[in-house]
């Protein structure tokens, strides 16, 4: 094996400069729970690794001035779980992240890594999409923002330009009566990869759904934002007809493949089933919120 250069910059500027200088042969290292596995299997062979875990912007969890949150892209699942308020406001985002792997993996795995790894089955992504989270990206040409659903470009690919680093996720402030949830279908109970994943975020006012977003994972080349499902329930009291319509929209949005993890028929049906279950949890939480 050829030698690998390991860099651990302390500032975002240094990171951007070093990453750009190493050009295409470098990889960003957050928790490494995807990258190191891929390197060991010979799938990825970077000559330089830029570890971003020492950079404050990537590891901070802050409440923003408008009442929202900003979470560093490299914050590990176990760290976010310990935050006193984040999980109360975004329980679905947190549970998506916390579903990843095991206790050991939670000590490292990050939402930034999960998103940038580009798997359509990444467990934190559907809830991030449903949350309407915005990714802040820094690169040689400065800083820009992308909606989370616009970050993945296909399996293993993102819309980050060469030299760009995902810095953080910004979550909007939440009106009263809002909450979210994430559920995945896996054949086992743990240590498995989502066959379908659904994130639902919504706001209820006197029992009426005034805002909703639905993220659907593992059923298409990228995680989907399902407008049709949200539209079907916004303005309703989440009556059965509305829910059925929204579930049908989820199934219709699926563009899955037949593979070792599930058939097209299975995934399509389960997308609807799982949507209903996720919605019920989110609504319950919002009612209590």
């Amino acid at each position, binding site marked *: *094996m050829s030698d690998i250069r390991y860099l651990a910059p302390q500032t975002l500027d240094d990171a951007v400069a070093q990453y750009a200088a190493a050009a295409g042969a470098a990889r960003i290292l957050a928790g490494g729970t995807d990258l190191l596995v891929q390197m060991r*299997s010979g799938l990825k062979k970077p000559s330089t690794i830029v570890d971003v875990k020492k950079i404050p912007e990537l590891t901070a969890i802050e409440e923003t001035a408008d009442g929202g949150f900003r979470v560093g892209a490299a914050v590990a699942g176990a760290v976010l779980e310990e935050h006193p308020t984040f999980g109360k406001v975004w329980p679905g985002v947190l549970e998506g992240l916390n579903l990843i792997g095991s206790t050991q993996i939670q000590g490292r795995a990050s939402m930034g890594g999960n998103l940038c790894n580009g798997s359509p089955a990444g467990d934190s992504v559907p809830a991030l999409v449903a949350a309407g989270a915005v990714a802040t990206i820094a690169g040689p040409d400065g800083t820009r923002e992308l909606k989370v659903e616009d970050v993945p470009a296909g399996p293993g690919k993102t819309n980050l330009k060469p030299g760009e680093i995902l810095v953080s996720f910004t979550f909007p402030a939440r009106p009263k009566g809002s909450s979210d949830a994430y559920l995945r*279908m896996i*054949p*086992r*109970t*743990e*240590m*498995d*990869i989502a*066959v379908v994943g659904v994130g639902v975020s919504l706001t209820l006012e006197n029992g009426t759904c005034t805002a909703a977003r639905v993220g659907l994972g593992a059923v298409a080349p990228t995680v989907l934002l399902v407008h049709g499902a949200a539209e079907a329930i916004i303005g309703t009291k989440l009556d059965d007809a509305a829910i059925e319509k929204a579930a049908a929209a989820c199934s219709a949005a699926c563009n899955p493949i037949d*593979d*070792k*993890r*599930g*058939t097209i*028929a*299975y995934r399509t*049906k*389960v997308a609807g*089933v*799982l949507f209903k279950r996720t919605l019920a949890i989110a609504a319950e939480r919002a009612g209590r919120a």
Partner: protein
Amino acid sequence: MNDQSHKWIGKRTIRPDGADKVTGRAAYAADATMPGMVWGKVLRSPHPHAVIKSIDTSKAEALPGVKAVATAADFVDFPVDTPVPLGIQDMRWMSRNMLAKEKVLFHGHPIAAVAATSEEIAAEACALIEVDYDVLPFAIEIDDALAKDAPILHDFIEFEGRKSNIAGTLEHKLGDVEAGFAEADVIVERSFTTKPVHQGYIETHACVVSVAPDDRTTIWSSSQGQFMVRAMTAYLTGIPQSHIKAIPAEIGGGFGGKTIVYLEPVATILSKKSGRPVKMVMTREEVMRATGPTSGSKSTVKIGAKKDGTIVAGQGTFYLQAGCLPGSPIRGAAGCAFAPYDIKNVHSFGYDVVSNRSKVAAYRAPGAPIGAFAVECVLDEVAEKLGMDPLKLRLKNAAKEGTKAAHGPTFPRIGYAETVEEALNSTHYKTPLTGKYQGRGVASGFWFNAGGESSAQVNITEDGNVVVTTGHPDIGGSRASIANITAELLGIDYDQVSVQIGDTATIGYSNLTGGSRVLFASAMVVTESTEQVIEQLKGRAAKIWGIDPSQVVWENGEARPMGEHSANFPSMSLEELAAKANATGGPIGAGSQSNTVGAEGGFATHVCDVEVDVDLGIVRVIRYTCFQDVGRAIHPSYVEGQLQGGMAQGIGWALNEEYIYDKNGRVDNPGFLDYRMPVCSDLPMLDCGIIEIPNPKHPQGVRGVGEVPLVPGPAAVRNAVYDALGIRIDDLPLSPPSVLAAIDANSRQAAE
């Protein structure tokens, strides 16, 4: 034996290897390292089926850092027309599985091997080996291999006068099945399929081999038998057994999958050619692509019974995948399937089918779960048709002492009926299910168990402790159990006994750890040796006291004079006698070697409760109990460990484990992410109903316990799913997509 008198037998003593394992000190094969050691890697076939036209290794040999390259030409040649059996293996097939000869027969089939100064260079060199192939069409599934125009794997195999992929058959016949079916009031016939499943040992195959210039060879490896490793390495390399010392490393699971060799002979030749010690460690992907799972199968079973529940005929046809070379466990499938029952008319037929997949290897009661799956599912339906409780149907027909089994033996005292009775009377079976989509299933199973060759040496140390050496790798807790027995026989403390596993140069021949034979067989030779030691100890005391040895008893770890002398001398402890050993005749110790017989079969009955998520097709096991006749539980914790491990593997086989092939004939799920064995959170507490009907042919009453617990599992789960859904699914695994498809098909049918 009087239970009350047992001080150590039946006690949950602390396992001697436990602390080492949890602290990381235990040395597994991949932990071995030597000065000057180089790394071996294997080049594997990119095709599932092709003729090897030529192999050019010159570029690999020229790569700096490469120390040796080996191909099949470097090994002993075993022509296909001359059988060379070794146990249940044949060296003709073993050699071709280890390194392809005329043809590659599956994707991942080893073709050549390289030793180099690093793993990376070895891998790079493998890529430089040029192989010229004539690519052939391939067959993966049984039906593909049996099709009229199927690609033929081996020109030398003929069946019914034609070239065929049926490599062998086996038949068991008892009575007259046609006459039996004619008497039946109820007949059920069904066909089933099961997928190949892997043993799933956590430790991948690994070895370090060092060959000296005079061919003296030392092997450190993880296997289920150091003597098996020695014999196979000798056969395949031509080095005599006396020159080979095979040292058993701690083993990280085997379940039958390590009863054959993949790496050791290859590393031996690489070491011989390079003059360096060679280390080889398989990746998980290599394990999943190229080491044996057990067979996939298709089978048809027909059972006839009278109104009163008497089973009058049983017929079974079992096709088992052998993988790419002959030899699937048809004996286990066809032989064990009907064995729990006293049926007058049985016809059981097995077919051994080769196809372009990795060669199967033993897996816990090889073949038996496949046969039991079909029979136990059909019995479930027979019971339903008769309106009879499925356990009562089994009890009515239970094999017992004197029953003639279709596979040959007449049973001695066995405990099958007791397993069913215990199940019937259990709180588990009596507790009603509560949920709408909950269901309960039952199934039974049989395994032959084995005796065979074992050796033991029991030595008293100078300070009055005991070292017992046996020749079987300890996979399931045999060291602790042997220590229990030795301490019991000698009447000393458990901690005074140290049990070692000898290498092939320090202990006599011992057959491998398999067939649930280790405690059965080693307890026999350890008992014989210990009894000889006790005789010696009595003799030494007699000498010291100047009395006749017949006037000495050994009790509670002491020699005591008896009769007229009983008051004359104070008793002498093991420690005192050991201290005086040299003065009384020299070291104290004895060995015993024997080909043990009398293992007798083992039986189990399982009760399984499931709950089905009918919208997602997910089956969850919510309660599970195994009732098993274990003969005598020498160490109950290990017996439970065996039972629980078997239950977990049976549930995995039933629910999610399967090999998935892509359209190019390659395994598409060669890792633990997509080859789904159950994880802890998938399982409820697995309960054990231990039944002890001592084996009359064993000094401690031991019966093998390690394999039976896998046998009933797949059928118990499937029958529970039927009870939950009212749908009989006959194809394993019951994975969510297939269960949901079955539910959907059923509701479509109901709607029509």
